[in-house]
């Protein structure tokens, strides 16, 4: 069955695989066949009938034109896409499709980039014979991201199939029959899936359009620029659509190895944050308590003086993990040239006891593409759908293909596929892994050895262990550590156990990178123990938590908001308040920066700078600046270069990011991502999270960084409710609380008032209180005890 066969399309000989559909062969050969319902990533519906072609096989013509999307190729097949019979069929279909479709393209948002418009021009008649009334369909409200105009719908059902097959949630359906058929939710509700924006691209007409973009520009006014999404560790390939120096919208670019054809809503709609009112547009210096706009020269001279005068050992550089590779490289070069080894990008990590033994260049462990062929995956501490929407989609594919997914998490996730969920409190995560390790007879040295030897694994843990072992035997097992694991006070222990489980089951270990350039940070050397080229640093500096615990006197904040992006905002703000000098480079002027900084340098955000991101599987993806930064803001790498010049440091003579990249690439020659630990992680005893009610501080999907937090449409989605405390109903009643109560939550000196939400996905003894959102600024560690009083 694997033999190739040759068919003839429009007189051209084409090679095809048996079972392939005619349209797939034609697409590969560049032969145009009109279509609406066919999409290469979705199942075949064959309901639009636009792709009708004339065909014959073995000299016998098919009696009727056949749909190219649903007709498999066969030996001796001859296809004619433009024969009189085919053209007549296509024209007929087009006439039917246009019976009920409004012919008011000038007032439709899709006008100019509409598949129906294009195909009607190419295959339709110039005049309509239909003079009767057209049907009208009431619109539904699909929420803040997707605008609807259902009268324009031609029932291709791509959106319905996307929901069923890709998203795994049937939010949309085709109800009614014949002329009364309509696409909708039937019962009005917001479309909430994190990949739902893709139905905007799938819709061949103007029925589903982007709500934030709607009626703001026309397709022919836009110029295109390729870029890389700046949020999660996937580095989805995107295309920016720009008009007059403004990003109007973001579309996906096909890259089978990275994002296939899709992008997450976070990558699609975050661009709106670029137009936020609080963009930083001038270098600002604090004088007598007031912010004064100054020239760049003045601001940078001041910064250079401050950095030079500062005690290098008590200086700290905190770099956002979505800074570009070039920014990270220059920042660490500058810091280290000044004798400061304290540089870190692991803003939410709290346990650094494994630093000396950690792998030097941690990554996903397998290629992104290989995730979907894993047979057994153990996911530890990750709310995977909000954290890594595209990787969650790959894992869903793995499960649908028969793979087994087990999760160890401090709350139950809503997944769109079967999975074994071990829902435990934070300390229980360690216990659960010990159980799985015990079931696998895993051997470790150090304090966990006895616990693993003594443990009596539960049947669930044994089943998880068995599925990992079976997958590992085929070389298709994976143990993944997510963002909640990284924020865990016993992260090192979780890592040690992951390695033990992986070794005993033959699986690999992988890290889910928290942000767009988390892997790149190790290559650039934005770590206290790792220098450029992922080599051990000569002088080991302080990790982020220690820079803030015994506060450094001079701190540089690169691209982050200290009250939202750091693991312990209360501690961070206190430390920054005590520091002698805080220098902030930021695209946004946040109140927290205004409160603690002495100098604010405006740097370009996503789309406004050239650079490189290294994604979860270690692929370097470079992009160009597409629009100018607002006002006096400048790309971050230029700011660092000039700063280097002002400090008279050698080597800061780069003319563009390509030069920086080339220098770093030379330094990274032969360096491969590798999750093999550099030392023994298992010598670290668990400290435990402490006693009492435990906070689970997850970072909601649209709280990941400053840009998404400023996208109004994303902030209005159901995923971003108001700040609240989620408790298991039994836990709430034990605390004397109901779901209408408000509580005062406290992790340090300052408390915050929040409503209680009852949620049986939260384990007993825990309270889910999100991090990175308004309301969480005065709280402490993401996973730590929290006190609560009725307010």
């Amino acid at each position, binding site marked *: 069955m694997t033999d190739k066969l040759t068919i003839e399309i429009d007189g051209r000989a084409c090679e095809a695989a048996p079972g392939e559909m005619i349209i797939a062969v034609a697409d590969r050969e560049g032969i145009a066949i009109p279509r609406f319902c066919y999409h290469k990533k979705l199942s075949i519906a064959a309901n639009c009938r636009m792709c009708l072609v004339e065909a014959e096989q073995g000299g016998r013509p098919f009696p009727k034109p056949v749909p190219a999307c649903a007709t498999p190729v066969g030996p001796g097949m001859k296809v004619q896409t433009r024969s009189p019979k085919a053209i007549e069929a296509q024209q007929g279909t087009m006439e039917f499709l246009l019976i009920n479709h409004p012919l008011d393209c000038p007032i439709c948002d899709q006008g100019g980039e509409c598949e129906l418009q294009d195909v009607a021009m190419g295959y339709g008649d110039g005049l309509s014979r239909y003079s009767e009334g057209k049907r009208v369909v009431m619109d539904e409200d699909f929420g803040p991201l997707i605008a609807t105009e259902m009268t324009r719908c031609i029932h291709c059902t791509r959106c319905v199939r996307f929901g069923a097959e890709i998203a795994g*949630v*049937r939010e949309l*359906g085709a109800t009614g029959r014949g002329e009364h058929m309509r696409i909708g939710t039937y019962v009005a509700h917001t479309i909430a899936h994190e990949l739902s924006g893709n139905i905007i691209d799938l819709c061949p007409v103007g029925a589903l359009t982007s709500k934030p973009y709607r009626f703001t520009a026309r397709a022919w006014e836009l110029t295109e620029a390729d870029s890389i999404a700046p949020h999660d560790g996937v580095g989805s390939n995107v295309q920016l659509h720009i008009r007059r120096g403004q990003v109007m919208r973001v579309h996906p670019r096909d890259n089978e190895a990275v994002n296939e054809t899709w992008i997450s809503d976070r990558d699609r709609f975050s661009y709106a944050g670029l137009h936020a009112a609080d963009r930083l547009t001038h270098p600002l210096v604090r004088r007598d308590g007031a912010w004064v706009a100054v020239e760049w020269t003045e601001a940078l001279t001041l910064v250079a003086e401050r950095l030079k005068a500062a005690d290098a050992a008590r200086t700290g550089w905190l770099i956002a993990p979505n800074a570009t590779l070039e920014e990270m490289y220059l920042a660490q070069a500058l810091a280290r040239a000044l004798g400061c080894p304290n540089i870190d990008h692991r803003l939410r990590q709290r346990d650094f006891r494994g630093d000396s033994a950690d792998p030097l260049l941690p990554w996903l462990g397998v290629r992104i593409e290989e995730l979907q062929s894993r047979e057994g995956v153990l996911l530890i501490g990750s709310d995977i759908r909000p954290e890594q929407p595209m990787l969650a989609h790959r894992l869903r594919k793995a499960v649908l293909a028969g793979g087994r997914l087990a999760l160890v998490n401090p709350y139950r996730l809503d997944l769109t596929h079967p999975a074994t969920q071990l829902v435990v409190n934070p300390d229980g995560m360690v216990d659960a892994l010990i159980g799985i390790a015990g079931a696998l007879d895993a051997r470790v040295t150090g304090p966990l050895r006895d616990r693993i030897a003594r443990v009596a694994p539960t049947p669930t843990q044994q089943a998880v262990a068995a599925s990992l072992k079976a997958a590992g035997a085929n070389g298709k097992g994976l143990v993944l550590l997510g963002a909640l694991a990284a924020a865990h006070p016993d992260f090192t222990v979780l890592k040690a156990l992951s390695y033990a489980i992986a070794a005993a089951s033959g699986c690999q270990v992988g890290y889910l990178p928290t942000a767009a350039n988390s892997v790149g940070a190790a290559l650039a050397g934005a770590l206290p123990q790792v220098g450029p080229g992922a080599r051990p640093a000569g002088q080991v500096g302080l990790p982020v938590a220690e820079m803030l615990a015994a506060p450094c006197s001079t701190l540089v904040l690169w691209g982050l908001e200290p009250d939202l992006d750091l693991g312990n905002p209360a501690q961070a703000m206190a430390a920054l308040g005590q520091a002698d000098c805080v220098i902030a480079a930021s695209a946004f002027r946040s109140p927290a920066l205004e409160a603690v900084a002495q100098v604010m340098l405006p740097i370009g955000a996503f789309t406004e700078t050239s650079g490189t991101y290294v994604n979860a599987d270690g692929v370097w993806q470079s992009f160009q600046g597409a629009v100018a930064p607002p006002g006096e803001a400048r790309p971050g790498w230029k700011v660092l270069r000039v700063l280097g010049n002002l400090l008279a440091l050698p080597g800061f003579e780069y003319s563009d990011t390509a030069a920086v990249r080339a220098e770093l690439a030379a330094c990274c020659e032969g360096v491969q991502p590798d999750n093999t630990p550099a030392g023994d992680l298992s010598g670290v005893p668990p400290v435990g999270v402490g006693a009492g009610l435990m906070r689970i501080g997850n970072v909601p999907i649209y709280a990941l960084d400053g840009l998404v937090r400023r996208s109004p449409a994303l902030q209005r989605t159901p995923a971003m409710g108001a700040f609240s405390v989620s408790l298991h109903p039994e836990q709430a009643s034990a605390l004397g609380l109901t779901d209408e109560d408000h509580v005062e939550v406290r992790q340090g000196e300052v408390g915050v008032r929040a409503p209680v939400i009852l949620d049986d996905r939260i384990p007993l003894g825990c309270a889910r209180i999100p991090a990175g959102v308004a309301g969480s600024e005065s709280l402490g560690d993401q996973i730590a005890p929290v006190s609560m009083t009725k307010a």
Partner: protein
Amino acid sequence: MSFRNAPLGVIHDRDKSTLFTSEIRAAIDTHIAKYPPEWKQSAVMPALTLVQEANGGWLTRDLMDAVAVYLDMPEVAVYEVATFYSMYDQTPTAKHKVCVCNSISCMLNGSEELIHHIEHKYQVKPGQTTADGRFTFKEAECLGACRDAPAVLIGKTYYEHLTPDALDRLIEGLE
């Protein structure tokens, strides 16, 4: 992956033994047993029929949702089925449903006349119930009785070769 060869199952977190009555559950179960376990949702049509009958001839949204739960399928997939077929109603109906076939064979053989006749004589539009509540008048898609068109379905009985007078007599016979 296609939801044609692998139906999208949704595991609903609800106790199935509280849905409907034990008789209805048993009746649905006999239909479920006809299909492979992963194709449980194939029983959606008989399930809707049973549930509609027990509810006096029409389906509420709650009942459709309950069917979705019982068959572990997405709610919207049940709505799709219930809104497609003319034998399911989503609004209250009278005890009797008079369904006149409006498809091509019946139309050529006089079903339009039957429809006009009912509309005028009983002052009721398709989909409506007569003022006295005697019956609900519906147009139905092809009843599959083309040979003996025009056909009308009243309750569960087919009547064929109908004229307006014959239809009147049938309607007068309804309790």
